[in-house]
Each structure stands twice: as C-alpha cells, then as structure tokens.
C-alpha cells in the first residue's frame, strides 16, 4: 500500500497550506472546493476505481488539518459514503461523490443533509443508499458542523448480512479515526494559541507565561497532546479492532475537551467572548466527544477487549 509509505509531512504541508491560511473556521464552500480540487475525497479509494489508493494515515493527516483550522462542513460524512460506495462497487455514484457532490450518512447525524443528494444508511445488517427526502436542521452549539434529522427516499441496498456487518464496522472504525484526528488538530491549534496568549498577556508586571503554575499546566497539556498523537499515528497503520479505534477516539476527544477547557480558562475573561475563537474549539471538542459514541461507551468496549485479549 502506497499510503503506508507516504511522506506524512509532505501531505501535511499541502493540507496546511490549503486550510491554514484563511484563518480559523474558513468559508465552507471554498473549503469544499479545495477538498475536491486537491483530490482528497478520492484519497483512500483504490486506484482501479479512480482513487489515489492511499491509506488511513493519509486520511488522518487531512482530518488533522481540517480540525486544526476548524474547517466547517461534512467531509467526515462524505468520506464515509465514499468508502461504502467504493467497497460495494457503486462506481457511478462513487465518481460523483469524489467530484464533490455532497452525500451524507446516518453514522454522523446526517451532516449537511439539506445540501446532500443521498444519505447512506448504516446498520448492523444492512447498508443502503437513498436520496434525501426531507431534512430538519438540528442547530448545535458547534457552528462549524450542521446536523440534521433526515428522512430517506427509496433505498438501494448496497450490502446485507455478514457483508453489511463487516462494512458497518469498517465505517465505524473510520469515523472514530477521523474524529480522533480532527480532535488532535483542533487541540494543537488551541494549545498553540493559548501559549501565544500567555506570552503576550501581562499582569503583575510580567507575562503570564512566566508563572510556573501556568507553565506546568501547559506542559501537562502538551504531554497529553503528544501522547495522543503518537497513539493516533500508531493506529493509522495495521488493523486495529473497532474497540481499539474506540479507545483511540475516546483518548483523543477527551484530550481535546481538556485542552479546549483549559484554553478558555487560561485566556481568562476574553475566553468567554465570541470575539475570541476559544469557544469554537470548545464547542467542536464537545461535539466530537459525543459523535460516534462517547468515551464512556468506548472505554467500556476497550475494557472488554482488554479482558478478552490481554488475559
């Protein structure tokens, strides 16, 4: 697999260039156009199906950068639909999705269903695709994502039985991995912003960054972030179980929530205002915690997995 040997930093540089220069939470349609133009929707699709044949690691790099810049939109849903269409040989729809036609899925609360042509319906015994019949926007605190209650039109069955179960698990694992990557990207940006603020903000005739009480908190956040990131790239290769991906997601989203919380606290009063972007990280972090199964759920699953596999 090319993806395994790909130069992660090269892809990171181009993604950072694409999303890092328009500021936080950049324009949604311009971001979507960039994702399409750069061919990132086709990243993990096999070359035989018109994709780039890259691995999970490459996908992680992109979502890390999307999280870092708080890019709005439904790239996570799009990539899940693409994965399902590629796996079930729906090449016409696959081509349309790779070209940027918005499609969504019930796996992540029908993100952007109002602009989506289709919705992928995933359950343990069937995977189906259907046109979106209707959608009701459920406004979330996180304004960088738009969630919907959606209804589906006539369904086309893509997989059933054991095939569906296997594909559903693969899609769930992918969702968990993308959320973990998005979280660590966001956490990195929030932490960097916080450190810069502490260096600038002066009280008691010195920068806040000089106080050891704050240095130690920041150092602990840095350690938490680095450890989580090492785990992310470790699980980007090989075949981790769904429970292991769940543990990764729990670990990374928990780190993000902690860093986002400290971002507000360490910015003081200004962190409570909409004028400053601290709240954007906090809101996205907490949505990431809730999407795709929360830490309570996945940590319990990971515990069961450990009981069976580490006895």
């Amino acid at each position, binding site marked *: 697999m090319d993806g395994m040997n790909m130069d992660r930093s090269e892809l990171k540089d181009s993604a950072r260039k694409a999303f890092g220069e328009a500021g936080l939470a950049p324009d949604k349609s311009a971001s979507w156009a960039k994702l399409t133009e750069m061919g990132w929707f086709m990243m993990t699709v096999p070359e035989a199906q018109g994709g780039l044949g890259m691995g999970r690691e490459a996908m992680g790099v992109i979502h890390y950068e999307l999280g870092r810049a708080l890019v709005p939109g439904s790239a996570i849903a799009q990539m899940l639909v693409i994965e399902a269409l590629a796996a079930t040989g729906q090449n016409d729809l696959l081509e349309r999705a790779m070209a940027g036609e918005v499609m969504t899925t019930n796996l992540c609360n029908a993100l952007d269903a109002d602009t989506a042509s289709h919705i992928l319906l995933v359950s343990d015994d069937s995977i189906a695709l259907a046109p979106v019949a209707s959608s009701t926007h459920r406004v979330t605190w996180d304004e960088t994502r738009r969630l919907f209650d959606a209804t589906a039109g006539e369904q086309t069955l893509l997989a059933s039985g054991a095939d569906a179960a296997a594909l559903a698990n693969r899609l769930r694992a992918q969702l968990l991995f993308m959320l973990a990557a998005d979280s660590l990207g966001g956490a990195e940006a929030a932490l960097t912003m916080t450190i810069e603020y502490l260096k600038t903000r002066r009280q008691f005739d010195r920068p806040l960054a000089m106080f050891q009480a704050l*240095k130690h908190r920041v150092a602990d956040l840095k350690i938490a972030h680095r450890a989580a990131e090492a785990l992310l790239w470790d699980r980007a290769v090989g075949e981790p179980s769904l429970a292991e991906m769940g543990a990764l997601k729990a670990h990374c989203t928990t780190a993000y929530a902690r860093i986002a919380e400290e971002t507000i606290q360490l910015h003081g009063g200004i962190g409570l205002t909409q004028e400053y972007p601290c709240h954007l990280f906090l809101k996205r972090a907490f949505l990431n915690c809730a999407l795709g199964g929360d830490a309570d759920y996945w940590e319990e699953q990971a515990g069961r997995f450990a009981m069976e596999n580490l006895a």
Partner: protein
Amino acid sequence: MNIELEKLRTEVRNWLAANAPKDWREAATHDVFVAGQRDWFKKLVAAGYAIPHWPAAWPGGGRSLAEQKVIYEELARADAPRLLLSFVSTYHAFATLHECGNDEQKARYLPRIMEGETWCQGFSEPGAGSDLAAVKCKAELKGDVYVINGQKLWSTMAQYADKCLLLVRTSSEGAKQAGLTYLLMDMKAPGVTVRPIHQIQGDEEFAEIFLDNVEVPVSERVGAEGAGWAVAQATLASERGLTLMELGYRMRGNMALLTRAISDTGRANDAGILRDLGRLSAQVDAVCALADQFLDNRMNGIEQVGDASIVKNAYSRALRAWSDFGVRIGGMDAQYRQGITFGDLNTGNWMADYMNSFAWTIAGGSEEVQRNIIAERMLEMPREPKGWTA
C-alpha cells in the same frame, strides 16, 4: 520490513529463549538479586548484546539505534531481567568517558566496565536535588590529589559499586556551575562510607555516600578543573529513550496482571472497572507509541529539546495510573504486606508497585523539573527572574 533487523530480532529472540533466566523474580534478598544481575550481564556481554551502543571496536558494539531498539524490544518481550546494575557503568560512565575522558582513562576503564565493573553516580546531595548545580561536596587540591569532604545522596546501587562518577565543588567563585569539577572515585578508597537508603516499599535501590577526607588522584579528573558541569551534561545526556521504550513495553506486557485480578475478583462485568481498564489500556498504548516515535525521531535526526521530558512524564504518569488501578482492584488484599520483587516495576504486588512508581516521577529529573524543561525550552515560555533572597 527491514530484513537485517528482522534477522537480528530472530537471533536475539532465539538466544533469549535459551538463555534468559526465568527465576529472577524469586530472589529473596537484594544481594541475591544483584548476584543474578552480575551473571546476566556477563552472559549478555558474551552473546554481544550488552553494549550495542558502544563503538564497533568493542565486541557487540557498533549497533545502530534501530538495532539497539530491536534488542531492547526483545529483552522486554522475553521478560528477561532488566539491566539495572550495569546501567550506570555501560551508559553513564561510558558516555562520560567516551565524550570527555582522556585516552588513558578510556583505556583503563572501558575494558573493566565490559568485564562487569560496577559504577555509581555521585551527583545529588541533600541540598542539591532538582538544583544540581548547587553541589557543595568540596574537593581541595593538595599536591597531586583532591581531598574530598561531603555527602552524596540517591546514588543507585552505590553499595555494590566499584567506582563513582563524582561531581564536586572546587571553587565557590562566580556562577555556581563554574566551580564544579568531575572526578572518578574509587569506592574502596579510605574515607568512603556507603549507607543504603531504606525505601518505603522495602527495597534498597539507592544509597547515601559519605566522604571524609577521601583522596582522589588528579589523573582521575575528567575534563579541566571547573569544567564539571559540562561533563555532567554528557553523563546525563546518555540514553534514556531506549529505557523508556523498554519499560513501556514491559508495562503493556503486564496488563494481564490487571485483567486477571479483575477476573479473579469477579468484576469482569463491572462497567466502571471496564471503563477504567479501557482508558488505562489506551494510555499505556499511547506511551509505547510515544517512546517508539521518540526513537524514530532520534534515528531521523529530528529529536527536539524537551522530547525526552515528554516521554518520561508520560511514562511515569502511566506507571502511576497502572499501579494505582491495581491497588484499587486489589482492595484489602493489596494492603497485606508481601515480599517485594527486586528489579521489576510491574509485579502485581500492587502497593509495592504503586510506591515504586514514585521513583519515576521523582528520580532522574522530577516530574516538575521535566515540566519546566518542556515549558521553558520547548514552548519557549520565559524563565522566572533570578535573584530571590530570603
């Protein structure tokens, strides 16, 4: 997959299967454990696995970091005894002599170290812990010997050591770092008294060293008089990444002690316990991945200042969490005192493991000092102004 590395891995794995002692945890006293350590070191030297980081001129030396990593991965995997007794000699003393020693010193000591001579480190003092440059132990030049008076503390296994890497004060003028000198001291010299420290869990891994008019020849000085701080940096910069990787792998390898204890106490379906187990398991996996990444970065020449501190704190926190969870699972049983296992951090003797874990949050640069390094050197947060006086 690198073929040469995998060949080495197989070779080491086969050798360990045939040669690694299985009964090392059964040592009833620290002395028995240390005797086992000496034997184990000799066997590893003969097999060519004891000093892989030394230059190629030495038997078993000249190994790349990738090869060294394979050896330590296999030592952890085989659950072989850790190389505790020889660590200061093969890493700290070697690095010091290699970087800063003169030819005569290298020729005299490196062969002895390979033959099993044991060294200890005389750096810390009652008044110089985190603030190492505050060393007070005094050395006065009289003719061709330094006369040493003072006290050293927290010296790992000094009671078994033949030689000591000694940091002393030769001047109190100027910056406190500038008055330090580095000596190699014979532990059998008259005036040296060693007293083992009784640790809270019953081990005696560290000792105090009292120095009363001890004479050290000038020829045993490493570097110039007053250059001790720089030489000490060479000592302290010697390998830490491999150890943390090895210890991380050993902790992960011993997760089964926790899962078995959970089963044995009938809590395999307790959601709260399972959650904490799942969380811990990810934390331990993250530490292993972090140590791996640290070594990869070092191999690729992109290690950054502070990276080692991040790995150390992540490991020591995970070790605390690991053993703390064990104490919780153990309940009352963990409170009944049992004999300790020497040379092992993850034994399932939960209270002992828990108490032992403090060595990693305190020794070798405390958690707090590591946080300062991360904040000030890596994240470039400004230092506090100096000059405070009581």
